[in-house]
């Protein structure tokens, strides 16, 4: 019995950090409407800075002085970030904000490794709190007791701050109607900045307080942010009480989940989240979100079917691509096959995101499921390649059916966070369920059939499937189904009023997109000969988003161009620099701030505005039809 009590108390102690970060995220979202992906990075920075301060300057500040100073320093960094980056994207679509703050996360990760090194850092214990209570023979660390108390104390302090101070009243007013608050003469800029500083302070404090409990390393940002997303989805974005309740709930589920499902404890959290979403789609304490801002990709020019010239051009490019084995080395062919696979992946996300208006932050889940599907069939069932390629993606299809049903109940940032959480669940299962998936060691030896075993033949296979996928998805865009999907994106109200079942249409689109992603994953498993949990990782999900964004969300050709450029760039970066994340993060941030239309979109705008007028005559019809090339 006492064991369970101790487990429960340990869960409460873990909830403190989760609550601090989640409440910070909620406060920032409430006022600025930005879901700050970089919140995990600020949490991590808090831990690193606190480590340095308590190790190096413990004489001057003491342990607690170091913890507080770390949170303040990181909050000041947050102020800089807000002023330099966020102020430029407050009016951007949610997806862009998530991406920009994710780019920031990538940069911080590499910077942290540069400054503090890649190894785990063990912080010192809090002075005076090193011991443990004896609880019926079980030990409870004294420090944990402090954390248990801290959660409710912070909750109370925040309540006082928001209800008993002038600043708090303004923040609550801005949460309800920020334009009105601005109209009443409140300096909105500084209100936003101060709110952001407070949110970052809380996250950094949460990180700093972790150093006596846990090693500090450069992966703690993504670990916490996924848990935080789950917490705010359950508790309701924007609600501090919700963040507290959900943080306790999730921490306890984790604490006891390990006892019930030792191998796949994450399942329990997932089940609870699913139930909450069915009963209260906006979380336990959340309010229904106002209509989401318009999704990126609302083309001014309606999409048109390809002209015959454009079709010829497509075939021409395809023939050129097919000629690569005559010129390129084996390495070029392997890179070429990988790029082709990622074109399928990007185009499938484009279908979901641009045509359907559903910006998924976890599209890699289905890529990963497709890859594992193939690996299971090939290694466990011993099926031939052709059967694996056809049946493997069914695992992704099945995953998309289950997850998609929940995801389409929501929209906007909730949709993004939920899809991310689902992807993380897939990743965790792949990582934790070692008996079946091999865990971190993955599944090795997934080799293609002899017929396509040479790089050239495999490349042709990948290219053919890619071309077919692009054509099929384009046909879908112009099919009645594609139009119904765009209708649900353009106006849910009007769609329902002309008899379209929006949810079912969106669900179907989700399943279609997931299946194509799974097909890409299946090919990828054969290309690499192995499957790893990272095939469903966050990094890959974001890769797909960046590919679509880089090329331009408005066009199918954008997704294709984006996939080619991004994949080539990242393969090149990884082989030439140690700091690929830093560069990639900077690219993402710049892209969002300066070229939100992407390569193809920017190119079209230049032609439209006449700055590339020499191209205009030849391509004026192409611009008309370019919509979805």
């Amino acid at each position: 019995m006492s064991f369970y009590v101790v487990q429960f108390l340990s869960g409460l102690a873990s909830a403190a950090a989760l609550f601090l970060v989640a409440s910070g995220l909620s406060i920032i979202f409430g006022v600025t409407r930005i879901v700050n992906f970089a919140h995990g990075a600020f949490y991590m920075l808090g831990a690193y800075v606190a480590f340095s301060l308590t190790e190096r300057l413990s004489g001057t500040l003491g342990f607690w002085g170091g913890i507080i100073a770390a949170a303040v320093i990181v909050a000041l960094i947050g102020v800089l970030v807000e002023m330099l980056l966020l102020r430029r994207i407050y009016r951007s679509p949610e997806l862009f904000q998530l991406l920009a703050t994710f780019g920031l996360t990538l940069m911080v990760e590499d910077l942290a490794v540069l400054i503090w090194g890649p190894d785990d850092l063990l912080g010192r214990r809090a002075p005076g709190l090193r011991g443990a209570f004896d609880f019926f023979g079980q030990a409870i660390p004294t420090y944990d007791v402090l954390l248990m108390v801290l959660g409710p104390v912070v909750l109370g302090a925040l309540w006082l701050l928001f209800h008993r101070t002038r600043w708090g009243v303004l923040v609550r007013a801005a949460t309800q109607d920020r334009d009105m608050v601005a109209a009443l003469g409140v300096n909105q800029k500084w209100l936003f900045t101060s709110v952001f500083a407070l949110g970052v302070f809380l996250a950094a404090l949460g990180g700093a307080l972790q150093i006596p409990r846990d090693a500090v390393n450069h992966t703690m940002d993504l670990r916490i942010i996924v848990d935080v997303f789950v917490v705010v989805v359950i508790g309701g974005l924007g609600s501090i009480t919700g963040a507290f309740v959900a943080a306790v709930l999730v921490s306890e589920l984790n604490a006891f989940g390990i006892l019930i499902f030792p191998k796949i404890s994450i399942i329990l959290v997932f089940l609870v989240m699913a139930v909450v979403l069915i009963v209260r789609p906006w979380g336990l304490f959340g309010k229904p979100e106002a209509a989401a801002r318009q999704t990126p990709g609302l083309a001014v020019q309606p999409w048109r079917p390809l002209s015959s010239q454009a079709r010829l051009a497509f075939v021409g490019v395809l023939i050129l691509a097919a000629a690569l084995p005559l010129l390129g080395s084996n390495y070029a062919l392997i890179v070429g096959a990988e790029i082709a696979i990622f074109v399928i992946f990007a185009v499938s996300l484009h279908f979901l995101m641009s045509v359907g208006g559903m910006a998924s932050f976890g599209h890699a889940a289905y890529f990963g499921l497709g890859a594992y599907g193939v690996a299971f069939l090939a290694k466990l069932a011993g099926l031939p390649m052709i059967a694996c390629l056809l049946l493997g993606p069914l695992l992704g299809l099945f995953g998309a059916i289950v997850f998609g049903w929940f995801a389409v109940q929501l929209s906007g940032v909730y949709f993004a966070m939920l899809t991310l959480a689902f992807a993380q669940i897939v990743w965790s299962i792949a990582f934790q369920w070692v008996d079946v998936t091999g865990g971190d060691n993955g599944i090795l030896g997934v080799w293609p059939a002899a017929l396509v075993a040479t790089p050239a033949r495999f490349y042709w296979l990948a290219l053919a499937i890619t071309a077919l996928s692009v054509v099929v998805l384009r046909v879908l865009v112009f099919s009645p189904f594609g139009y119904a999907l765009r209708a649900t994106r353009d106006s849910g109200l009007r769609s329902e009023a002309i008899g379209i079942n929006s949810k079912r249409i969106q669900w179907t689109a989700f399943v279609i997109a997931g299946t194509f992603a799974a097909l890409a994953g299946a090919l990828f498993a054969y290309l690499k000969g192995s499957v790893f949990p990272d095939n469903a990782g966050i990094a890959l999900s974001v890769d797909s988003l960046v590919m679509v964004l880089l090329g331009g969300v408005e066009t199918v050709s954008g997704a294709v161009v984006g996939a080619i450029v991004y994949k080539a760039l990242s393969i090149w970066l990884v082989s030439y620099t140690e700091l690929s994340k830093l560069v990639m993060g900077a690219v993402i941030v710049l892209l969002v701030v300066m070229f939100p239309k992407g390569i193809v979109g920017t190119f079209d705008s230049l032609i439209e505005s006449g700055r590339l007028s020499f191209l205009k005559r030849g391509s004026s019809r192409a611009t008309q039809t370019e919509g979805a090339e």
Partner: protein
Amino acid sequence: MSGAAALLSVDDLTKSYGGVHAVRGVSFKLAAGEILALIGPNGAGKSTCFDMLNGQRKPDRGRVQLLGQDITGQPPRRVWRLGVGRTFQITATFPTMTVRENVQVALVSYASQIFNLWRSTPDFQRDEADRLLALVGVEGYAERPCGELAYGDLKRLELAIALANQPKLLLMDEPTAGMAPRDRIELMRLTARIAREQSIGVLFTEHDMDVVFEHADRILVLNRGTLIAEGSPEDVRRDPQVRAIYLGEGLVYDARHQEGAGT
């Protein structure tokens, strides 16, 4: 006018939010080809009433019947399938599609083809789409992106979309709100003509009393959630209760427009 074969029959419709009775015990009938106006001051419950008719909101009590079939609380898309078209106070169209495609989507849905993955939508029932566009007078813009249309034309387009399922009943929430005076008259004349020709019942809410008194066959007056008057424009105009509510608003109509009302 409310004969045995009522197209729409509303019985004791009631809805409250918290303790506020938004709509209380509203009953009326609407015949095919009849144009019925629902008027009342702001907050009278017009929009709530309207939303309950096409399933946007569920009533607490009461019944809505279309040609004798109970449609109370059915979701909007089912109500639409049964032959009810709707236009919104603020137009709801598909801005990234062309004007013609906007109508084609509605035609696709009417033909139960929305899960068709193969056909090309731009070629789908093109003639029928063009016929509807011509009917409301925006055929010249068929290829234009819908987002580029002027507001008055958007309203017309919305009417064309609402007509795509050959409705028996049109629900129009403030059809002329935000339009220039001349466009208002034109749109309502158009609506009235289509309603008469195709024997479609029309229920509309409206703040512009010129529009109401010129085009409605019959008027329902809602105040604080209850019907306080019902009858022909003349009856309603003379009603002392209505006068009390509308003093200084629609009644100016009396003197100014009496002679011109017939044109």
